[in-house]
């Protein structure tokens, strides 16, 4: 239940980068599965918070990033299956999180 504040931050960042454009038509967001952000909720609030700004009516595009671990022993990447974390390639028990926490505005399209 924190998407309203987050959506306002998205708007603020987009407006700051609008670079004198008349209108923002699209926002490209990158969202990791561990970032605790729900796309539909952001889209819902977007219509409300963007009203009356140059970003009103802009399309939100979400690129979802799946959680990905890297085995420190054999260096292969894998997605956790939710039950165990051991490396499926070599059984390694030393891993690092390499993707899944992303939450950023990658770019905007303006005209």
């Amino acid at each position: 239940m924190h998407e309203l504040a987050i959506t306002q931050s998205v708007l603020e960042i987009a407006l700051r980068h609008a670079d004198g454009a008349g209108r923002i038509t699209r926002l490209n967001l990158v969202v990791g599965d561990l970032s605790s952000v729900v796309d539909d909720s952001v889209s819902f609030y977007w219509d409300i918070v963007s009203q009356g700004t140059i970003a009103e009516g802009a399309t939100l595009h979400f690129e979802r990033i799946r959680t990905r671990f890297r085995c420190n022993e054999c260096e292969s990447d894998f997605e956790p299956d939710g039950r165990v974390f051991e490396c499926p390639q070599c059984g390694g028990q030393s891993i690092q999180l390499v993707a899944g926490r992303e939450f950023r505005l990658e770019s905007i399209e303006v005209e």
Partner: protein
Amino acid sequence: MSRTVAVVERILSANDQMALENRSELDAAGVLAVNLMASPGAGKTSLIMATVEALRDEFRIAGVDGDLATSIDADRIAALGVPAVQINTGGACHLDAVMLRGALPQLPLAELDLLLVENVGNLICPSGFRLGVHRNVLVASVPEGDDKPYKYPGMYQGVDSMLLNKMDVLDAFDFDIDYFRRGVEILNPGLAFFPLSCKTGEGLEAWLSWLRDEASAFRAAGGAGYEIR
């Protein structure tokens, strides 16, 4: 004519900036701040109360309590005679740096050594919002089940120490400690782990000792030099 403008900015950058300000203020006042995260009912408030009672002669302690509504938690802590501030998040599922920023002026920071921040009970959102504290601690508890590291890796990965509370009821639950610890160890190798019971006091000493060591290191480093992992 449509064109693309590269942005590449973390959505939470404003929160991160505010967290840095919190950190500077706490450093300048010489207050070690610890963020306690857990699911609802894991025993965060009980842990704070037990910690206050055990360490109140060694450190000047205060509490900040985050909850959707009510001041039940802060009242419990204030009843021990230490400063306590309640933050009502009004429905938000986590504390963020702005909320903590609002609470700090309500505390006598110059007269404190240790600030225990109780986050909103939730294993998901609190891990995503930096507060500007020095240490993050997870309070797990036996009745939640042994699969939580596997379901909430984001939370288990981002903490500096972990407690497993309610060890006194271990026999009543099918809680496989080895399975639990294996998940934690893979996510967060070498993580300090304290099985304990706030109710009986068993195991509490190891947690208190960790906290004492952190407070000494913080003091020795003079606040700003204290390493954030």
